[in-house]
């Protein structure tokens, strides 16, 4: 009988051994430390604020020597142009009725298609990385105003290092709140009729437009795309755009729209730019591209 007891005991002991193994760990482990010298900063510019660096040109962006070209084109809605209902109908603003939607509806600007020309408004077409070069910056700040609880510029391209003056032409306060990826966010209250404005400076280019919101009025949205070069455009009401002084070469443009399914209408829109005027482009998109 006794010989049967032994294996049981041995099993028990093994169980305990196994059970107790793996003690330690947790908060009482003291980590090892290794030093890593600050080597990566050796080559980067020193200074208070890191300066945006020129991106090296990509594979498809080799400028051909000689001449600059102008690229024109139009974004066209292929199909029946949608007419989105207004976000807020006149006089029905959930708040600040005396100002917001007091005289007119607040339109849904997320997709504006011209019923006549089928042109799509507010489409961004831009180069993510521009050819190397020193491009003159605009001397005047950009203006970004709000009126009737609408951002007057729904979509705009701005330049890195050039202030965007945020203004307020409403008799009520607005609150401008940006959601950038690479830059620091801004969340600034603007008092009523503020024409002095608050400057917003982007220090780095972004690869997609930055959303701007007003926390006080949930429907207010706009998009700003800071670039460190002039090669980008926002389409006008008839869907047309124009990019000037582009060194001739082959480029991959990004085409972005806020309603685009998956973010971009086109991630790499390849164009070869010849010196001088280029053949106007007709870029067509369908309702499905906008998730309609």
């Amino acid at each position, binding site marked *: *009988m006794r010989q049967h*007891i032994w294996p049981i005991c041995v099993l*028990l002991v093994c169980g305990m051994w196994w*059970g107790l193994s793996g*003690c*330690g760990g*947790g908060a009482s482990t003291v980590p090892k430390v290794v030093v890593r010298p600050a080597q990566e900063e050796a080559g980067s510019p020193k200074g208070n604020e890191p300066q945006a660096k020129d991106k090296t040109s990509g594979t498809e962006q080799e400028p051909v020597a000689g001449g600059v070209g102008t690229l024109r084109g139009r974004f066209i809605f292929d199909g029946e142009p949608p007419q989105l209902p207004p976000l807020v109908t006149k006089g029905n603003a959930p708040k600040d009725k005396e100002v917001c939607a007091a005289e007119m509806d607040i339109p849904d600007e997320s997709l504006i298609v011209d019923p006549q020309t089928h042109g799509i408004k507010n489409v961004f077409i831009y180069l993510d990385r521009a050819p190397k070069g020193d491009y003159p910056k605009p001397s005047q700040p950009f203006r970004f105003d709000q009126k009737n609880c609408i951002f007057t510029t729904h979509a705009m391209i701005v330049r890195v290092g050039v202030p965007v003056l945020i203004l307020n032409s409403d008799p009520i306060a607005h609150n401008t709140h940006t959601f950038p990826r690479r830059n620091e966010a801004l969340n600034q209250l603007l008092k009523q009729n503020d024409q002095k404005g608050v400057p917003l400076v982007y220090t780095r280019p972004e690869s997609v437009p930055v959303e701007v919101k007003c926390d006080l009025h949930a429907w207010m949205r706009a998009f700003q795309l800071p670039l460190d070069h002039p090669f980008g455009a926002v389409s006008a009401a008839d869907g047309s755009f124009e990019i000037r002084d582009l060194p001739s070469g082959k480029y991959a443009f990004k085409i972005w729209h806020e309603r685009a399914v998956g973010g971009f209408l086109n991630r790499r829109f390849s164009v070869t730019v010849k010196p001088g005027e280029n053949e106007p482009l007709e870029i067509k998109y369908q309702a499905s591209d906008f998730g309609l």
Partner: protein
Amino acid sequence: MAAQAGAHAAGQHGHGEHAHELSFVRKYIFSTDHKVIGIQFLITTLLMLMVGGALALGVRWQIAYSWQTMPIVGKWLFGEQGGQISPEFYTMLFTMHATVMIFLVIIPILAGAFGNFLIPLMIGADDMAFPTLNMLSYWFMWPAIICFGLSFLFDGGPAAGWTSYPVLSAIAEAAPGSGMAQTMWLLGLTFVGVSSMMGSVNYMTTIINMRAPGMTLFRMPLTIWGMFITAILQAFALPVLTAAGFMLLFDRLPFSIHSCFFIPNDLIINNAEPTVGGGQPLLWQHLFWFYSHPAVYIMLLPAMGMVSDMLAAMVRKPIFGYRPMVYSMAAIAGLGFIVWGHHMFTSGMNPALGMTFMTSTIMIALPSAVKVFNWIGTIWGGKVRFNTVTLNCIAFVTMFIVGGLSGIFMAAVPVDIYIHDTYFIVAHFHYVLFGATLFGVFGAIHYWFPKMFGRMMNETLGKWHFLLSFIGFNGAFFPMHLLGIAGFPRRYAEPWIHPYLEHLLPMNRFITISAIVMGFAQFLLLANFAYSMFRGPKVGRNPWKANTLEWFAPSPPGHGNFDVQPVVFRGPYEYSSPLVKDRDYLMQTEYLPRREERPTEQPQPQPA
């Protein structure tokens, strides 16, 4: 061995109307036989004991080795944190430890397992009064186990302690486990309550109505008295807890339809909206302890009874002061209803109540003391054989002395101000619930095992189990008195952030190692149990040469228990009676003709 076979035959052929073979399921699973139900309870609760023990070891691990990887589970539970448990896991551990131990181990192992197995056998009945109800009382344990088990899975696990004081338990935002886990916990509690209630009604009816001829109330063994008083306690106290549980469930209902029994106004919990209500959290404490204090005696009285029986049989001596024993049990039960307030001395209840409850609580020590004196009196002049059963019974007595004496500190309100919610309390109730009850239960397992399975348990393993359990137990819980005096609060996930406790770390390590010894010693019990079930030496009807009726039945008893209807002629403790000279026991069923030649051997019952 022949007797055993005969008994089996007797069991089957003795009742012609039951001659058809029961299916396996009806016989061993959904059985209405009190013995099968008792054994089902026993095995379930022993497994739950291991679960509860494992949870306790988790608690101990965290205190002694705070935030270090817990053995076994740490690796896969909290691997990303470096095996470091989270504080709400710790609260879950001790909450569930107490829950499992109280509701799924101690109460069911006493009332469920031994109550079921012993009551009909000891009073000479062929089964419980309501066999189906009896079966249900076991099977209602399972929803409870499932609910408690599920509560582990939700959120952080119930984390309001086993006492579940609202507001912590009433509002889901108050603690990680106070959401669905707490609801599940309350449901589990309800099911346990239903199970207990079914049992207690059954026991009362059985004991009152189904005693064998000649079995007067004062010829009942103390085990039966213990069970009887327990059943009464349960029947009267449990509805209060169940009602309170439902009130708490109603309070927990979402949105605007919840009640506010326990939720006061304007509490801000977890940054939620301020509560709206006019409830009183103290109400829960009163209701809860109105049940849970008597529950302490529910967890003790049957063990007291069983130990009395075992002790008398082991020292071959009548119990010292049988009637005082019965009266003191009754007194404990009666007083048990009016002492609940001593759990609440610091709770902010009316101070006048403090004085009343102090007096009643201190007086409850009196019947306990009487019992202790009577046990020592029983051993006094007896013939002591140190087998596993005796050892466990003596352990019961000495542990109960410690637990009882430490209780006086808490009963005294001013001292309790300091002692309350420190480890002194932990030491105290473990001495009573584990030290006393569980050692009693260990003894009872060894003592009645031959009746359950017809085989003896292994003595060597039994003694090792006792030795390791006893040393481990005292090593774990005795120092806790000192911790309590040092002001060591209960339920701290990491006490070591408090500098005034830092020097107690070595003692806590010692406690934890002792607890591990004690915990793993229980494997010896399980091993012994499993091994002896199949390989233990077979025994006859009365291996202990004891007097009570269950030893009159075959081992194990067949369906219907007795092959011969027992008739009772005397009390249960006629050991070493001068009436019989050649042996030191005299069974309750033996008829001794006056002044005539007395039989030398116990008559073998004949198959009808």
